[in-house]
């Protein structure tokens, strides 16, 4: 079977007035089905641009991008919307939940844009997705009645509800405290182990190190592509080791 994501010499150039800004200068890599990958890089490195392209929110200036066998760079806006709806589950730093809708309604939203499902079918699937992220008892709550971690779980349930090929998370722990971040990362890990392809865009090493593969972007180019190093092998990991131990303890029972 072909790769879930195949990116070949992907380029993206913006016009800022009269100046061309080369946000991506030819990036190539493949991600296989079931991988757990982090894209890392400092701000301005082009990782957001890369994420927007992978998320089909933007189209490349040059290069090729195949998602689950679809030549994304050749699709028109309506098809890109359909691809986002069916193939990609988005998780955002700011959750982006509709404030006036319940958790259940928020999670069911992508299914409305998918079409072809009755209202009760959509709500059943949304309920199942909420159960999957451990929020089966909070379905009727509105976002402001939930904690940050719970809100992010609702957002993850919304990303899962349409059975996407790819879970694409943009700084998913950026608005959460460290303990809640751990729980969310654990959830991503669990989802990955159940077969989901997970791609996390982050600038936090702590987050990146819980994935299994690291793509490092700098100045619009892929500078390193390597398996995520073991915990503690880099100095920056020492101070978080207590939290990590708890994380692994929780997982191992």
């Amino acid at each position, binding site marked *: 079977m072909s790769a879930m994501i195949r990116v070949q010499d992907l380029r993206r150039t913006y016009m800022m007035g009269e100046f061309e800004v080369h946000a991506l200068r030819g990036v190539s890599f493949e991600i296989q089905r079931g991988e757990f990958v982090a894209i890392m890089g400092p701000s301005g490195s082009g990782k957001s641009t890369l994420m927007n392209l992978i998320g089909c929110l933007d189209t490349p200036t040059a290069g090729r991008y195949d998602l689950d*066998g679809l030549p994304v760079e050749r699709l028109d806006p309506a098809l890109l*919307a359909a691809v*986002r709806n069916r193939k990609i589950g988005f998780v955002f730093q700011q959750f982006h939940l509709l404030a006036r809708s319940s958790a259940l309604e928020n999670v069911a939203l992508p299914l409305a*844009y998918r079409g072809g499902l009755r209202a009760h079918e959509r709500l059943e699937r949304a309920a199942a997705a909420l159960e999957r992220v451990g929020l089966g008892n909070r379905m009727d709550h509105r976002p402001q009645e939930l904690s940050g971690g719970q809100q992010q779980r609702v957002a993850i349930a919304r990303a899962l509800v349409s059975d996407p090929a790819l879970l694409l998370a943009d700084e998913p722990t950026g608005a959460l405290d460290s303990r809640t971040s751990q729980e969310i990362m654990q959830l991503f890990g669990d989802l990955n182990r159940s077969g989901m392809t997970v791609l996390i865009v982050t600038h936090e090493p702590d987050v990146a190190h819980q994935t299994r593969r690291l793509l490092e972007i700098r100045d619009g180019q892929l500078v390193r592509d390597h398996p995520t190093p073991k915990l503690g092998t880099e100095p920056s990991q020492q101070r978080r080791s207590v939290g990590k131990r708890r994380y692994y303890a929780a997982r191992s029972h």
Partner: protein
Amino acid sequence: MQPAVIEIAPSDAELETEIDALLSGGISWSETLGFALATLRTNPMRTLLTTLGVLIGVAAVVALLAIGRGSQESITASITANGANLLTIRAGAASSAGIRGAIGEGASLTMADADALAETSRNPAIALVSPEYSGNAQLVAGSTNMNARVTGATAIYAQVHNTTLAEGEFISAADVSATAKVIVLGANVAETLFAEGGAIGQQVRVNGSQYRVIGVLESSGGTGFGSLDDGVLVPLSSAQRSLFGARAVGGSWSVSTIVVQARSAEEVDAAQSQIETTMREEHDLALDGSDDDFSVINQQEILETVTSTTQMLTFFLAAIAGISLLVGGIGIMNIMLVSVRERTREIGLRKALGAREQDILLQFLFEALALSGVGGLVGLLIGSAIALAVSMTGLMTAVLSWDVALLAFGFALMVGLFFGIAPARSAARLDPIVALRYE
């Protein structure tokens, strides 16, 4: 929106199938409408205030058009209440050109004219001829006195003017030939002079001479031109000879008007030309075309003039009300623009989750249409209520009709569409990447 066509290698049938599957889905319009209504429900105060502009506009349009149509119908009714197919002949030229201005100036109409017009052989299109003589006189009954229009009439008058009696009888041909001192009272006159009723048989002094009341007319209710409620009728001969002294040159008696009824609506024009021919012969006017010394007023022409005047006034008022509807539309546009700005992140999210441009466009268009539609509907009800209330005061009549209701409601929807399209387009065109980061 560009067509969803991409270049696909012909061999790649599997990909083609997948593209077809992607294109087959999409949100239904009813779901989109649901999103739009849900948004409006979350902010009821704003929704209410926004609909108010359209509501007031539609209510004003509906009420004004209903009142306009009502007045037109009541004017038409009061003109035709006189009886249909009438032509009125007066002395003097109708021409406004030159110095021949005032009606009644110079030559007069006489009984001989009326007799000539009544000759069926000369005027086959004429059914009835009613010579009349009117003037004002002082009426006294007991201690009550009043001034009223006194019309000298023949027995034919009742047929021509469709008068109906509340009690008693009308002036007969015998009364006219006998110059009888009898009088028929209009409803209001009877009410004034004989407040306790029992007018029949009572005496009324008309300019000093005693007249016996033989009938009281039914109230016609209106205040229109043809209403006789405030007048009285006496035999034509009595009016001419004893009340007003209307002896004409040459020994005949003069009349102030001759009212002619044509045999049918189709024969009104024929009747008019026969009247003109007969009158010119009677008045010895040269065939070569010296000016008429009489004028013929065609009732249908009056009707048309009055109708077109009221219609114009009505549409003028409705147009002013329509302007307030436009202002309401601008209010909708304003709120929609604010709403698009406030919900930028929501729009970005919806796009990220798979909403196409057309889905967002439709959602915001539905919001604008719902605002104007609800405003239109409630405005329709309130406008109808105002029209009914006006009717119930009795001062004016208002007539509601479906075409006016549909017109006003349709116009409200058009206003919503027109003013909703720009905000909806700006929402649909938002770049999801920018919109998601919007603070």
